[in-house]
C-alpha cells in the first residue's frame, strides 16, 4: 500500500515536471509571434555571428545575422505543430484500427497484423527517411512519413488490449446481451484503452520530436529559411568551432522537448500504475 502511494506521489512529481516543461515550451511556441523580438527569417549581414548577450539579440545571431532567440521560438512552433499533427493522426488511426483488429473478424485482424508486422520489420527512422525522400523535402513530407511509421505502435497496443479485454466477463456479457461491435468498442473497450494510449502518446512525443529534428537535420524536413530546430542544427554544423552556441541552443531545445515528453510519459505511467499491470 505504502509502496503504491510512493509510486503515485513520485509519478505526480515526474508528471508535473514534464507537464511544466512541455507546457512552457508549448506556450512559447503558441505565443512566438508575440514574444519573439525579431522576424526569424530577416537577414542582416552586418550583424552576423554575434555571440549571446553581446547585442540586442539576447541569444546572439546566426550566420545570416538572424536573431537566434526568435528562430528558436518559431522553431518550437514548427516542432509542436508537427508533433500535434503526427500524434493526432497516429493515435486516432492506430487505436481505431487496433480495436477493429482485436474486436473484428479474424481475416481483418490477420490482414492488419501482417501489414503492421511488415511496417515494423524496418527500423522506423529508415522507413521514414525513405518515405520523406520519395515525397521530397518539406515539413509536410516529414509529417506524412512519420505518420506512416508511428501509427503501428498505437495499433499494436490497442489490438493486444482489445483482444485481452474481449475475454473479460463484462464484455462477454455485453456480447451475449446482443451489443454490436461498435457499441462494445465505444462503451467497454475504449474507456479501458485510453489511459494506456495517453501514456504511449506522451512517451512517443519525445521520439517524434527527435525524428522530426533528425529528418530536418538530414535536409528532408523544413525548407530553409524555416527555423526548425533540426535544420538549425544542420546549418550551424559549419560554425561548430567559431560559433558553438549556434549548435548548442537548438540542440538544448530538442533535449528539453524530449525530456518533457519522457518525464510526462513516465509520470503518467507511474500514476496510473500501468507498467505493473503489464500494458506498457
Amino acid at each position, binding site marked *: 500500500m505504502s509502496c503504491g502511494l510512493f509510486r503515485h506521489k513520485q509519478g505526480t512529481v515526474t508528471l508535473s515536471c514534464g507537464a511544466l516543461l512541455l507546457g512552457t515550451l508549448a506556450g512559447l511556441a503558441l505565443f512566438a509571434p508575440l514574444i519573439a523580438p525579431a522576424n526569424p527569417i530577416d537577414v542582416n549581414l552586418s550583424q552576423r555571428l554575434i555571440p549571446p548577450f553581446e547585442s540586442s539579440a539576447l541569444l546572439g545571431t546566426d550566420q545570416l545575422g538572424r536573431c537566434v532567440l526568435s528562430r528558436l521560438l518559431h522553431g518550437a512552433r514548427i516542432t509542436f505543430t508537427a508533433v500535434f499533427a503526427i500524434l493526432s493522426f497516429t493515435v486516432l488511426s492506430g487505436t481505431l484500427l487496433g480495436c477493429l483488429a482485436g474486436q473484428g473478424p479474424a481475416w481483418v485482424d490477420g490482414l492488419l497484423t501482417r501489414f503492421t508486422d511488415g511496417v515494423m520489420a524496418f527500423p522506423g527512422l529508415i522507413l521514414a527517411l525513405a518515405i520523406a525522400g520519395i515525397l521530397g523535402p518539406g515539413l509536410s513530407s516529414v509529417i506524412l512519413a512519420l505518420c506512416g511509421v508511428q501509427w503501428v505502435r498505437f495499433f499494436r497496443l490497442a489490438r493486444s488490449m482489445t483482444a485481452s479485454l474481449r475475454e473479460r466477463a463484462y464484455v462477454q456479457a455485453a456480447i451475449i446481451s446482443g451489443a454490436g461491435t461498435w457499441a462494445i468498442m465505444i462503451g467497454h473497450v475504449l474507456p479501458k484503452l485510453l489511459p494506456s494510449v495517453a501514456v504511449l502518446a506522451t512517451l512517443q512525443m519525445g521520439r517524434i520530436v527527435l525524428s522530426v529534428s533528425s529528418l530536418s537535420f538530414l535536409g528532408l524536413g523544413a525548407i*530553409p*529559411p524555416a527555423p526548425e530546430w533540426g535544420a538549425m542544427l544542420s546549418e550551424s554544423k559549419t560554425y561548430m568551432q567559431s560559433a558553438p552556441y549556434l549548435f548548442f541552443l537548438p540542440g538544448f531545445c530538442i533535449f528539453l522537448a524530449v525530456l518533457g515528453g519522457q518525464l510526462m510519459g513516465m509520470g503518467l505511467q507511474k500514476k496510473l500504475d500501468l507498467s505493473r499491470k503489464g500494458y506498457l
Partner: protein
Amino acid sequence: MNACVRRLGTAFQTLALVLALVLSLGLALVRGQTAQAAMTPVIIGEDVDIAGFDPALNESPWAFRPLVYNTLVELDLDFKVTPSLATHWEASLDGRTWTFFLRPDVVFHDGSPLTAEVVKMNFERLREGAQKSWLSGIEEISVPDEATVVFRMNAPTFIFDSHLTPPFLSIVGPAALDDEGKVVAAIGTGPFTVESWQKGRECVLKANPSYWGGKPRTDQVIFRIIRDPDARVMAFESGDVNLVSLRGALTAVQRLEKNEAFTILKRTGQTSENIYLNTRRPLLSDARVRRALAKALDLETMIPELLGETAEPGRTFFASGFGAYVSPTPYMPRFDLDQAKRLLAEAGWKVGPRGVLEKDGSPMKLSLTVVANNAENMLLAAAIQHALKAVGCEVVLNPVESAAITEQFRNGDYDLLMLGQWLIPHNEPFTHYRFGYYHDNSTYKVSTSPEITALIDELESTADRERRLELHHAIQDGLGQVMPAWVLFHRNNVIAVSRDFADFTVSVGTWQLYRDLAKP
C-alpha cells in the same frame, strides 16, 4: 709536476671526448632532423577518393590526375598553355591538321618508352570512352614517325592545343590496359607513381625518379580521404594532414589565419558560381526583369561577408584567371535597389497586397533550385531569397540532391538554379558557350539568340587570336544585355599549409591545384 701535467692531459682528453660526443650527438640530431624534413610526406586532405586508375573517369578527383599522368599539352600554374609530352606543335592554316612532336626519352612508370603509336592508341581509346564528346572533332590520327602524331580534324579547329590540356585526356602506358582495353594500373609518365591505394581511405604516391621534368623534391604525397570540409580542416589543425584545400570550409580561413603555425595561400581560380534564369518561364522572359532582379543583389557586401577569402564577388562573366578572354565590361550590374524597383515598375510589375509584386494577377513567385548538401550554396540561397524580397520577389528554396539538379537543369525544370559555371575545362572559354549554355546546339540552352549563336559560330571558325578575343568580349557583353545568368562569385583556390610547406605555389586552374608538388 709530471703528475700534474698528466692529470691536466687527462682532463683535456676527457673534455675533448665530451665535446666530441656532444658535437657528434648534435650533428646526428641535426642530420636526423634534416633527413626527417626531407622525408616528411605531404599529406593532403581530399574530399573525393580516386575512382580507379583511369584518368578519363569523371569520378576521379581533379587534382590527383596531373600528379600521376601527363597530357600532350598542359596548363602551368598560371593557366598558360605549356609543353608537356609534346615539346612543340603546329596547326595548318585551315585548322584541320594539328601536328604534335613528342618529347624524346620519356618513359612510363613501368620503364616502357613513350612513342607516337602509344599516343595514338590512347586517343583511339579516349575517342570511344567517357570523354568522347571532347574529341568528336578528330577525324583521323596518323603517326608519320616514332615521335610525331598528326590529328586530322573534321572541321577547322583553332584551339586544339587547349582542348588537349584537361587531365582526363592523359596518356597511359600500354601495360596499364587489360585485354578489354580498361585501365587497371596507374602507369603514367607523371612526377609521381602510385605506391598504394586503400579505397575510401588513402592513396599514397611516391616521387618518380625517372620523371622527364626531374625527380620531385617531395618524396611522398598521401591523399587522405575526408569527405566533410569541416572535418578536413579539423584534421589539418590536429596535424593529421599538412595541406588542405579550404573549398567549402566557410569559417576555416578566419580561424586558421590566427594560428601562426599555418599559412593560408590564395589565388583566384577558374570557376564561378552562377544562378541560371529560365528565360522560357513567363515571369523571367523579360530581360528588364532579369536585370532588375540582378540589381537587387548586393554581391559586393554579400560575398565577402558570407564566403570571406574563399570567393570574389561576381563582376565579370568569367573569373580573372581567364586573363584576356574576360571582357573588361562588367557583366553583373551594380547594386541599386531604387533602380531595380523602377525597372520592375517599367516592366509592368506593381506591388500587391502582401508586398509581393504582381502583374496580370500573377504574383512574382520564383523557386530557387539549389544543391541541398552544399552549405555554401544554401547559405547564399537564403541571403539571395532575402535580397529579392526587398524588391517584392518571393523566392521559395527548392533544395535537391546534386545528381537531380543536373537533370532538372537539362530538362529546363527550374525558375532559378544555382550551380557552378561548368564546361570550361581549360584556359579558352569557347567551349562554355558553344557546348555548354548559349548556342542553339549547346547542352543546356540556357538562353539562345540568333545573334549570340552567330558570334559563337564565328568564334569557332576564327584563327586570329585578336579577333577571337574581340568575339569573346562581344559574346560576354551580348549575354550581359540578355542576362540569362547571374554570376554570384568567382571561387578562389585557397589552400592551408603547415609552415614546412609555406613556399607552395597555388595554381589558377582547378586541375593543377597540387601540381607545385612536382617541382624538382
